[in-house]
């Protein structure tokens, strides 16, 4: 585990988490949440948990983004918070 790389990705994770919750457009929030999942997958691959990393890449970044986009397209895209 390289601590510089670790710290860099962790800071990016906090930033993407905050932006995903702050942005007003729900479709943007879904895409930024997908970036968050992909960064998390990178962190796990770096920690030596390759099985968890590719499950997260397929299921977390892929499938849950599809679920979110499907829900947003069937309901509404705008929000007040």
């Amino acid at each position: 585990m390289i601590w510089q790389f670790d710290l860099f990705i962790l800071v990016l994770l906090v930033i993407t988490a905050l932006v995903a919750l702050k942005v007003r457009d729900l479709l943007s929030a879904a895409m930024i949440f997908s970036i968050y999942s992909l960064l998390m997958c990178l962190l796990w691959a770096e920690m030596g948990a390759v099985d968890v990393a590719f499950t997260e890449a397929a299921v977390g970044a892929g499938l849950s983004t599809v679920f979110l986009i499907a829900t947003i397209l069937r309901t509404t895209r705008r929000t007040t918070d």
Partner: protein
Amino acid sequence: MSDVLTFIISRFNYWIYIVLMMIGLYAMIAKRNYVKKFIGMSIFQTAIILFYVSTGVKSGATIPILEHGHDIGHAAAAINPDHYANPLPHVLMLTAIVVGVATLGVALAVVQKVHDQYETIEEPEILFKLGQE
């Protein structure tokens, strides 16, 4: 004083896990939109999974796959567990990821049904419409 500071700085990753967890908890409590609430729930889950996976890390270790595992004869006697990351938390958290996505899928299906009935996914508006009935 400097001991306390070293204690805090040397465990910076745990502090960031706690920050991520609290971001998720804040979103679940304070956000009014249901999709935002569920994004917060996913952030909360992944932060906890990240904490558990990080407990399996050893310094100088590689991924938990045996080198030369196919020729069992001489290699099996020379396995040193210090050279491999601990795979037990990985296996447990693999289940947790799948459960998290299943939870998200069911929650979003319920959000769609709520939108069919109330024409909105904002919690205060739904509570207002419930109060009118």
